[in-house]
């Protein structure tokens, strides 16, 4: 059976988050390459999952969906898009059975037959379930594989218990430390989806312990941290991350349908009926993935790959759909291509593999204010560049980068605190651009 793909949901949520409210149903569906009917169906399903996973107030639930996933800084530090990763579809009976088994193994270690008995005749038994022994055994195998349960040492019949050493081994105070640590790391490091999932479970455990004395919302959750200027939609692309990492590990090519972010459409339904087949707008691609890159400047993900015909190719993860692992290549070939790529991106501000140039810029210190925030920011964000000269009111920063396109926005963001000295062409481009910007506002 083909693995369930979440391409539609990912593209859907991304568009919703980025364009927040810009499009009506028709426009939205058109851009995703789906029918309005599919649009309605998708939004219904996502709403249902969001409502079941996020403990929202009823007031929040009644808000429009776009509003519900909107970034709202001081309201909540919960990752609003995490529910995507809870979207795997499951038969009702299966979810019921798994929950029953887990709750039983949470009580005490159980054998497969004891669990079977519980499903068929226990107080919570449901005639609709009645699994056979084989089903229970395959459930246990699955749960053990994903590490949710653990087989107890000892002879047959084997007993299984829930793998909850993390909460069992720690006291309340330590558990709170763990929740805080996981919260901080999930919010400040990438990748973070697994961290957010763990945070979710820890929060539930801590909440149960603090329920008695909690009245404030933050206290109830055991959390008091906020994170400012967060690209919260970054977690959508983590959906592809592990498929790509596995392919890289296996030295395998990947196949996918690519929608360049510059095209209007970002998804197309995969029609199974050939009568309705049409040009989907995306391009089928095959490439050998070598590196996955996260760009902190925009909060976007890239795959850097090698393609036998065109050499190094760069893809944005947001444009990749129908991703699948393909045939593998010889180790030597992979190593050779990786070395080549590593050389080429050594001086990429982001991912530019063009020719290297030395950029030289003068930064001006902010007058008499005591903290020199210009210098601080250059040191913090200037990557491998260096301050080569310092004067009383300014300093000179130098960096060797591939092309000037990617560093230019950063230099420009300093406004009049930055003057590009070299290369000449970049200096002239800056002047031209500032003139255009000034023209936008001259009528103030």
């Amino acid at each position, binding site marked *: 059976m083909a693995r369930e793909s979440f391409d539609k949901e990912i593209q859907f949520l991304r568009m919703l988050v980025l*364009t927040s409210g810009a499009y009506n149903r028709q426009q939205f569906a058109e851009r995703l390459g789906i029918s309005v009917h599919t649009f309605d169906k998708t939004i219904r399903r996502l709403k249902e999952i969001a409502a079941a996973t996020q403990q929202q107030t009823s007031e929040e639930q009644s808000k429009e969906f776009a509003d519900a996933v909107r970034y709202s800084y001081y309201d909540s530090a919960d990752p609003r898009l995490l529910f995507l990763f809870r979207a795997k579809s499951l038969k009702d009976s299966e979810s019921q059975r798994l929950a029953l088994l887990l709750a039983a193994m949470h009580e005490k270690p159980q054998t497969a037959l004891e669990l079977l008995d519980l499903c068929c005749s226990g107080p919570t038994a449901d005639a609709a379930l009645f699994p056979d022994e084989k089903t229970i055994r395959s459930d246990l195998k699955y749960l053990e594989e994903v590490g949710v349960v653990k087989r107890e040492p000892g002879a047959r019949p084997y007993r299984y218990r829930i793998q*909850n050493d993390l909460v069992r081994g*720690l006291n309340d105070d330590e558990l709170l430390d763990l929740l805080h640590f996981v919260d901080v790391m999930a919010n400040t490091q*990438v990748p973070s989806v697994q961290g957010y999932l763990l945070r979710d479970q820890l929060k539930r455990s801590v909440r149960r312990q603090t329920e008695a004395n909690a009245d404030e919302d933050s206290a109830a959750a055991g959390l*008091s941290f*906020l994170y400012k*200027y967060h690209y919260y939609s970054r977690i959508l692309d983590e959906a592809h991350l592990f498929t790509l990492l596995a392919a890289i590990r296996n030295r395998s090519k990947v196949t996918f349908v690519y929608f360049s972010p510059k095209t209007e459409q970002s998804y197309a339904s995969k029609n199974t009926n050939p009568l309705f087949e049409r040009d989907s707008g995306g391009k089928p691609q095959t490439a050998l993935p070598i590196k996955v890159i996260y760009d902190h400047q925009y909060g976007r993900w890239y795959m850097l790959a090698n393609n036998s015909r065109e050499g190094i190719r760069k893809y944005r993860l947001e444009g990749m759909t129908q991703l699948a692992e393909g045939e593998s290549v010889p180790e030597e070939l992979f190593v050779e291509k990786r070395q080549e790529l590593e050389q080429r991106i050594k001086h990429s501000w982001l*991912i530019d593999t063009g020719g290297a140039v030395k950029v030289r810029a003068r930064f001006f210190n902010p007058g008499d204010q005591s903290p020199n925030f210009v210098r601080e920011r250059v040191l913090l964000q200037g990557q491998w560049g260096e301050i080569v000269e310092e004067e009383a009111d300014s300093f000179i920063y130098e960096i060797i980068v591939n092309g000037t396109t990617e560093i230019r926005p950063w230099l420009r963001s300093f406004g009049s605190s930055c003057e590009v000295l070299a290369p000449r062409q970049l200096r002239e481009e800056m002047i031209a651009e*500032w003139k255009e910007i000034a023209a936008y506002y001259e009528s103030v």
Partner: protein
Amino acid sequence: MNPFEKIFNYQVISRLENSGTFMVTSHERSWLKLMLRHPAAAAAFSAETLTKLHGILGEEQSLELELEEHFVEKARSLEKQVYHPLLRSLSRAIIGGSGLTLSYKIKNDRVHERQLGVPYKMEYSMVKREWYLLWYNLRHRSFMRTKLANISLAEPADLAPERIKQAIAFIRGQLDKRKEYAVIEVMPAYNRELSRILYAFSCFDKTVDYDEDNGVYKVNLGYLSDESEYVLSKIRFLGKRVRVAESDYLRKRMLESSGKALARYGVLLPDQDEQASS
């Protein structure tokens, strides 16, 4: 590792809601194992807890190798600080609803000694990579934002629950009052770069309007007044792709900084010319 395991399914989770079952997979544990290698771990746990955690996660595979080899982060700020030693005690004061006595350094290295206050939340700036405490200063009756690095003393202080409630309500009111709004227009010539532009604004509270007839996108931003500098740096970052359509303050500042930037290059705008010659 498949982030869409069926065990993460929302129905399973909600069915387990009241059973107290703690369910995590090896995915989360190997993520945690990787994170524990970060220097922040030493500040987040006591040595004893850290040993326990390493013991619990002993057999787990760490995500580490895979990420180190195949994953690169670009344009990342230097990580000055991820965990501050005060986080543990301050977060407990916040959760426990207690007051605080604080000594802290302000500009010009002056120190405010033993100020009584109510902590609200702690805030991490992803840009500056530093922690701040948001709190209410009882004597000055003001909402404060203080770098944890500048706090030299923080002790729990007994305060009546009523006073704490009032202080928190005051802070919430202040946060509302300080909200500013601006409208940023995407220049239609750059609509092809819409995705990049919207990504750049995705860290703000925003909505977008689309005028289909003219093909014009407008981003309505909501932000706190003390964040305007950051909003401005984003707008300058995007350059001529966007224009501030509404917000007199941001428009004035953009005119000012483009004029000053040009002056750095020896180019004077027409009205600067007049000022210079008059």
